């Protein structure tokens, strides 16, 4: 999940939590406010009532009704009532109280906020109750809660969208850095040093640090190239010297057989050394992208050339060489390198083949990508061996001469050209190398 979504979701969740708490507290808050308001009204009414009261009026109130010694009056819709009753004895002082209680007026039960006022008048105790219905208030509370809920939901949705958009805007430089500075950079030479515009100091810093890192890498890269050139010169010159000396030494007629043998074997070792160095240099030069890939290669021609080069070896083992290439495929790459790649594969196919065996080259288009198969009927490899064939200095068969770099070179050339290699092998039956070419280079 991307950080912008995570942030937006987190923000929305916290907002929802706050809103939920608010919403749950709403009834309590409303009750407090409403009760305060009603209480104020009730006190005003009580004040009005008390101001005008006198003995006669009280009697009038109570007597006019019946002998219950209670006077009650209510409004038509039962939302307010007033009730005066005589208490059994005098209280000595007056007292005001608010209560919330259900009352039945003309067989209709409702919740009321009631002011109870107890007072003495001419040595008699009275209780005055003024009530105000709460049913309307309850309806109102419900409406308010519903309305607020809708408003809150709208707020959550709107802020979520705004958050996402804003975070998106903030993170834009970040993705730009990833895209232009990291993903599209294959080698330090093509690195783009233009600063990325960002309002966040963090991304500016990231950009600067990346630029610095890339500068260091380019420096190292250049050093490595220089190193390779130096190694080539400094190692190969003494080898050339030794080789020439040994070859001159061989011309000496007075040498006995064992001396000649020793010189011959030294020359072989020297040759081996030269080839290992050359091959390692080749690999590092490929990996340093010191080759161009701008030649159009015709595989049919290439294979014909190779078959001629390797004719002797194929004949020496009495192998059959089947060239079954039929597709018309031209690939843009480096001719020298691809020559080496196929050469190494074919040499292996010869080297590990059995007498009277065969080598088959075939091709086809699979999912629009060109596939080249190099199959032999050789000794094959098991799973364990298959896993390490591309490792440098790995020699599967100790009896055969080699330095274990052939397939490592094949791999680096393939990687350089974005070719994927698949190998399948059956012990004692043979091995097939499949080269899958990138399809975007097809026939251009």
């Amino acid at each position, binding site marked *: 999940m991307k950080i912008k979504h995570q942030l937006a979701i987190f923000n929305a969740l916290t907002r929802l939590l706050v809103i939920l708490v608010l919403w749950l507290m709403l009834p309590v808050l409303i009750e407090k406010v409403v009760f305060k308001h009603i209480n104020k009204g009730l006190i005003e009414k009580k004040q009005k009532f008390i101001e005008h009261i006198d003995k006669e009026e009280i009697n009038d109130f109570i007597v006019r009704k019946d002998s219950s010694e209670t006077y009650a009056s209510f409004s038509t819709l039962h939302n307010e009532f007033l009730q005066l009753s005589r208490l059994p004895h005098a209280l000595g002082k007056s007292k005001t109280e608010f209560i919330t209680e259900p009352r039945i007026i003309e067989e209709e039960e409702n919740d009321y906020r009631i002011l109870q006022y107890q007072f003495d008048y001419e040595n008699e105790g009275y209780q005055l109750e003024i009530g105000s219905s709460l049913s309307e208030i309850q309806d109102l509370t419900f409406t308010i809660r519903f309305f607020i809920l809708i408003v809150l939901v709208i707020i959550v949705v709107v802020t979520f969208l705004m958050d996402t958009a804003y975070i998106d805007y903030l993170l834009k430089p970040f993705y730009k850095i990833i895209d232009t500075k990291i993903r599209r950079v294959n080698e330090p030479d093509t690195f783009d040093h233009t600063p990325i515009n960002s309002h966040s100091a963090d991304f500016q810093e990231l950009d600067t640090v990346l630029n610095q890192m890339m500068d260091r890498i380019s420096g190292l890269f250049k050093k490595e190239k220089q190193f390779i050139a130096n190694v*080539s010169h400094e190692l*190969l010159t003494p080898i*050339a010297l030794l*080789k020439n000396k040994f*070859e001159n030494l061989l011309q000496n007629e007075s040498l006995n*057989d064992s001396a*000649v043998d020793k010189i011959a074997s030294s020359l072989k070792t020297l*040759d081996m050394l030269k080839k290992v160095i050359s091959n390692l240099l080749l690999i590092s*030069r490929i990996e340093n992208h010191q080759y161009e890939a701008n030649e159009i290669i015709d595989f049919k021609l290439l294979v014909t050339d190779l078959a001629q080069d390797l004719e002797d070896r194929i004949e020496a083992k009495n192998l059959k060489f089947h060239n079954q290439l039929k597709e018309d495929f031209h690939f843009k790459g480096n001719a020298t390198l691809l020559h080496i790649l196929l050469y190494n594969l074919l040499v292996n196919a010869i080297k590990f083949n059995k007498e009277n065996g065969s080598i088959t080259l075939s091709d086809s288009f699979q999912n629009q990508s060109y596939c080249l198969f190099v199959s032999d009927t050789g000794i094959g490899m098991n799973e364990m061996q298959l896993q390490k064939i591309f490792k440098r200095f790995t020699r599967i068969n100790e009896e055969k001469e*080699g330095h274990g770099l052939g397939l490592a070179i094949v791999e680096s050339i393939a990687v350089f050209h974005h070719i994927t290699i698949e190998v399948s092998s059956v012990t004692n039956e043979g091995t097939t190398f499949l080269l899958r070419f990138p399809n975007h280079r097809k026939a251009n």
Partner: protein
Amino acid sequence: MNILIVEDSPELAIEVKDFLSASGYVCKIAKDCATALDEISSNDFDVVLLDLGLPDGNGFEVLTAIRKTQSKTAVIIITARGELDDRINGLQLGADDYLTKPFALTELGARLFAIIRRMHGFTVNDLKVHGFTLQLQDYKVSFEEDPINLTKKEFDIFQYLVLNKNRVITRLQLTEHIWGDILEVNSDSNFIDVHVRNLRKKLEKHAPISWFETVRNVGYRINV
């Protein structure tokens, strides 16, 4: 025939000089760019052997200087793999040939022979050895007017041995000469022997060839 050897390793330069002097060439050695430029401006050379990795600069400067002043001078670039992007580049820059280190002196000899032959308008067309004639122009061999049918490889081997007569030529040297500078170790595979055997059979039909010697475990030599 004047040759300038531009090489910063004095030992290697002397080794090359000794070999070429023995073949009748007159050699001078320059150990860096400055000396090489001095030599070129004061003397006429037929061939310059040019090592690209020189201590005081790039051998290409010397090449450019040669191309400016002495157009007839042939240049063979000698370089370690890795200093040049590839073989074609060296030749594109105006060199006549290109050898990678380490090279065999006999290979250098063969290249020199080819270059000098070209410089002199292919006047040296035939090589003669014990009654056999190698026609370099059209890769044919004959014995006293009798044509012998050789393959391209057999002819190349024969020519290489004749050019380096009286020298032991190792199988490795022959292999490199025929198949080029291949990068894979195949010293166990003596394909060269097959070709030499066939070559000898074809030659033996016409005359005894005791001068075509096999040097045990090492290679071959043609004695004159």
